[in-house]
């Protein structure tokens, strides 16, 4: 137990280091941007109607104080961390004056809901099928599935998603290809809204499952086909343990542990995946927000989304790392 606590502490320190390094990098990279939020807003405001030069000057001073753009970089950096710990990153630029954090929080449920469901689903299906394919190596269906999985794997996710859009939006338009819910449905906790959300999630989720499933399928099949040859499996079979029991509790159970790392990596890839998924399917979420912010030169929102990404990804990997020794007694925590 004491070893485990030491292990948790060590991993926690590493988590802190990753989060710190990641967010600092994001801060410094975004602050190299030549776009000044103050001038952008003034340009937007002054473009719509005419103001006296004094009013513009007053506006400029207020905005400069608000964004803190006149401070030297190290003070900005310190301020950033002081405000970051209380969850305040400042006003956004694309939807001024809505706080950037609020925009992120509005987008987050969409991303997490779609991505986590799709990734966990593809992980479970892929591993189950992969386990069976490794055990029943002569099954035609599973063999064919393996060939398809091999063929899909090297194709970048974008192309798969794009092909789905072309097929279901152009050749056989049966599913909605864009948006998170129908235009004429009011968001709320109603059956109609929930159905609409699920209906719109089918295509993006399918694209994620197609790509994710292949990876865990191939990994699992390789692991299982090695485990099957081990003595304890042969022994269990000879001793008359039921086949299903051997497959699920003797073989797949043991192969599951390394596959957990795969799940951690897939969850880690969430933010890479989400940008593309949301862009292709016009889905509301962090990815769309990030793309909008980048195109609008919005430093605060870009920084908020990337900080969120760093924290979420590092935490997911951290949690799965902690589960590792608990699930597999052979893993030494030292």
């Amino acid at each position, binding site marked *: 137990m004491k070893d485990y606590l030491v292990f948790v502490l060590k991993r926690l320190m590493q988590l802190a*280091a990753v989060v710190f390094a990641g967010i600092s990098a994001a801060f410094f990279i975004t602050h*190299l941007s030549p776009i000044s939020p103050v001038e952008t807003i003034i340009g937007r405001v002054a473009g719509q109607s005419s103001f006296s030069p004094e009013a513009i000057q007053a506006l400029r001073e207020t905005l400069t104080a608000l964004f803190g753009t006149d401070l030297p970089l190290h003070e900005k950096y310190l301020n950033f961390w002081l405000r970051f710990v209380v969850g305040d990153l400042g006003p956004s630029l694309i939807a001024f004056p809505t706080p950037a954090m609020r925009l992120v929080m509005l987008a987050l449920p969409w991303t997490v809901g779609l991505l986590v469901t799709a990734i966990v689903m593809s992980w479970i299906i892929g591993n189950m099928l992969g386990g069976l394919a490794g055990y029943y190596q002569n099954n035609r269906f599973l063999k064919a599935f393996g060939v398809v999985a091999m063929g899909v794997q*090297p194709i970048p996710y974008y192309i798969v998603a794009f092909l789905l859009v072309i097929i279901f939006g152009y050749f056989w338009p049966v599913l909605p290809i864009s948006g998170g819910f129908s235009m004429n449905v009011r968001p709320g906790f109603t059956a109609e809204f929930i159905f609409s959300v699920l209906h719109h999630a089918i295509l993006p989720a399918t694209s994620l499952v197609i790509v994710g499933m292949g990876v865990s399928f191939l990994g699992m099949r390789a692991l299982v086909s090695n485990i099957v040859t081990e003595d304890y499996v042969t022994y269990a079979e000879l001793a008359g343990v039921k086949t299903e029991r051997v497959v699920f509790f003797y073989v797949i159970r043991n192969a599951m542990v390394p596959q957990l790392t795969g799940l951690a990596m897939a969850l880690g890839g969430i933010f890479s995946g989400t940008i593309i998924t949301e862009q292709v399917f016009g889905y509301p979420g962090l990815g769309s927000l990030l793309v909008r912010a980048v195109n609008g030169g919005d430093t605060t929102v870009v920084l908020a989304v990337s900080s969120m990404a760093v924290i979420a990804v590092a935490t997911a990997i951290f949690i799965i790392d902690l589960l590792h020794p608990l699930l597999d007694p052979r893993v030494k925590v030292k």
Partner: protein
Amino acid sequence: MLAIVKDLIRYNIEFAIGCVLVGVIVVFALASFFSPVDPTLIYVAIPDQPPSGQYWFGTNSRGQDMFWQLSFAFRNTLTFGLMVAVLSRIISISVGLLAGYLGGWVDRVLMFFNDIFVALPIFPILILFYFVMRSDLDMYRLAFVMACFGWPFDARLIRSVALGLRHREFTRHAVFSGMSARRIMFEEHLPYVMPIVFATAIANMIWSIGMEVTLAVLGFTNVNIPTVGTTLYWANNHSAMVVGVWWWILIPVLLIVMLFIGLFLLTVAMNEYIDPRSRLRRMGGA
């Protein structure tokens, strides 16, 4: 080296198919050196022509001959992939061999950075670079940035091999005969990790080209340089699918899928070759 390739082609059908697929794309990309047109010019041909004898791959809505356009695109994409692969190999070999051979605190420090790099979400970071550099983010800069993020997994792999080599007899002989650490690493240990380096280099190319395509499609690179990604970007920009200019999208997608499957088969074949058990099974020796 040549004998290995010969063996692979003879005994490994995946390797042979992979070679053919990648070979076709490479020849196609090399054709751009004999191109009669400048790929950066627009409206030099009749727009929206379907594939025909004159325009093999048709022309796009920007009035460009798709055959030469794609030829340049693949040349740039392949160059990009190779650049990332070579640069990131240099980092991963150095880190892997140093950490594996020297061990101790060098190993711990390097692996600490390695773990951080593994955990960083690369795609958002690349978008950050675009956010700052805008259209200055050309192929070469992007390749350099991606190389800085593409090494950690392979460095770990190389380190694990180098760890095993450290306690082998020949390493001890080399140490006692007064070889320097640098020479042991690069003359004695490097040849052992070379097969891994080649296999991971191809896997790395798949990764980096996929990233480039994705970034470019979203418009997050300099879209005026023809690459496979920017070709698709312009196709989307002109709503090629809606207008019915299907060849603008279908041909590049088919070609890039061909390249990816080819490269993937090469890695599979290489990985199998590295593992002596599966190599024996394949050649019928076991």
